[in-house]
């Protein structure tokens, strides 16, 4: 077994490496945005599914790594429900395992080229729902804290990498949920810059004319697990269609 000093040194090396990588992502993101501006390219992921098609959608940033989502969702290709999270050998995991009722998975196409007219696209499956048969009973997250919903945690545990997760971000400022569109746009921009995560803020219009803004992400599993929480807010992340209203 390592000594305490060896464990700390190994962890610090990895932390430094992550920070270096993050700087590279931010630099690459800045260069990509500059290139997009020069080309006059506006990439807006207009996403929605099932009964949750947003009235309008806006993407302050729309890059995820060198690829970008160019918003093609094939609703006709919904796959059969995914396998439920299987029981594990260990009781706690078994309890957390979820009984999948109606997962929502769609094929989306991710452009592998900066030119939106390019034919080069990669098909990925979008995960936007993973209902679980247990109540969410989260405390209000403190500043800098980030909780994942059981559904999201179970979906990532079950599917893992290679998928795109559509994740709704609830922001909390103390005991109050953040509802301001401006605050969400600032946060969306920060998440893109710091985590390289594709983000969007959308405005939902209800039949009675009431409106609501919500921030969501299109992210890979590791981007969700490494969610760069800021010290300004607490966060609860859940799958888009498990929590969207």
């Amino acid at each position: 077994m390592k000594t305490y000093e060896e464990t700390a040194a190994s962890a610090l090396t990895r932390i430094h490496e992550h920070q270096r990588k993050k700087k590279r992502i931010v630099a690459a993101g800045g260069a990509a945005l500059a290139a997009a501006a020069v080309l006059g390219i506006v990439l807006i992921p207009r996403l929605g599914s099932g009964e949750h098609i947003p009235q309008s959608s806006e993407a302050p940033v729309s890059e995820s790594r060198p690829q970008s989502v160019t918003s093609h969702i094939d609703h006709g290709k919904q796959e059969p429900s995914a396998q439920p999270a299987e029981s594990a050998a260990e009781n706690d995991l078994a309890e957390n395992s979820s009984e999948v009722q109606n997962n929502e998975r769609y094929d989306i196409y991710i452009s592998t080229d900066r030119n939106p007219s390019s034919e080069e696209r990669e098909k990925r499956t979008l995960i936007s729902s993973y209902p679980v048969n247990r109540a969410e009973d989260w405390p209000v997250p403190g500043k800098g804290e980030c909780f994942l919903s059981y559904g999201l945690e179970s979906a990532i545990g079950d599917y893992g990498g290679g998928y795109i997760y559509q994740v709704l971000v609830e922001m909390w400022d103390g005991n109050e949920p953040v509802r301001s569109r401006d605050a969400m746009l600032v946060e969306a921009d920060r998440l893109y810059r710091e985590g390289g995560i594709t983000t969007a803020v959308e405005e939902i219009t209800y039949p009675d004319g009431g409106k609501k803004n919500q921030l969501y992400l299109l992210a890979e599993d590791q981007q969700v697990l490494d969610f760069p929480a800021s010290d300004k807010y607490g966060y609860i992340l859940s799958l888009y269609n498990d929590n969207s209203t």
Partner: protein
Amino acid sequence: MDNGASSYRRFLEGDESGFVEIVREYRDGLILYIDSFVGSISAAEDIAEDVFVKLGIKKPRFSERSSFKTWLYAIGRRLALDWLRKQKRRGEIVPIDSCAELADKQQLEADHIRDERNRAVRSAMKRLRPEYEQVLWLIYFEEFSCKEAAEVMKKSVHSVEMLVSRARQALKEQLSKEGHDHENI
């Protein structure tokens, strides 16, 4: 040291010796807790290191000690469950500790649990259901309140209270079976 709070503050200000102090204070308990999920002390050691890496990357802010420790254990639990899921998905069998690793584990427990009676309790706990072992570890050895344990285990406080009650009963029976005193459990 004030339960890691000043060390963590120093680390946030850029003093990495604060980070080493946090590792020194929390690593062993965290490894033993994670081991109760993954059943491999070497995997638990790696996962505990991942927890400290996450702490260094995310740099969450805490106002009090309990939420700092709660955060570490909640992340430890989550990473342990992720690890188990990955093993299962890949069809890999959880590695069995080698003799050297078992010796490491015994040494770690001996270092972390000085009191002989507590060692007997710990030994009996390992024969209980993993969930009982985990909640008892948090409450008795890491001195979490039920509310903090609930945050770590992602359960309601009421569920944790019920779980502790059942786990305590099971522990008494186990201690009794092994011929140990179970007063004050």
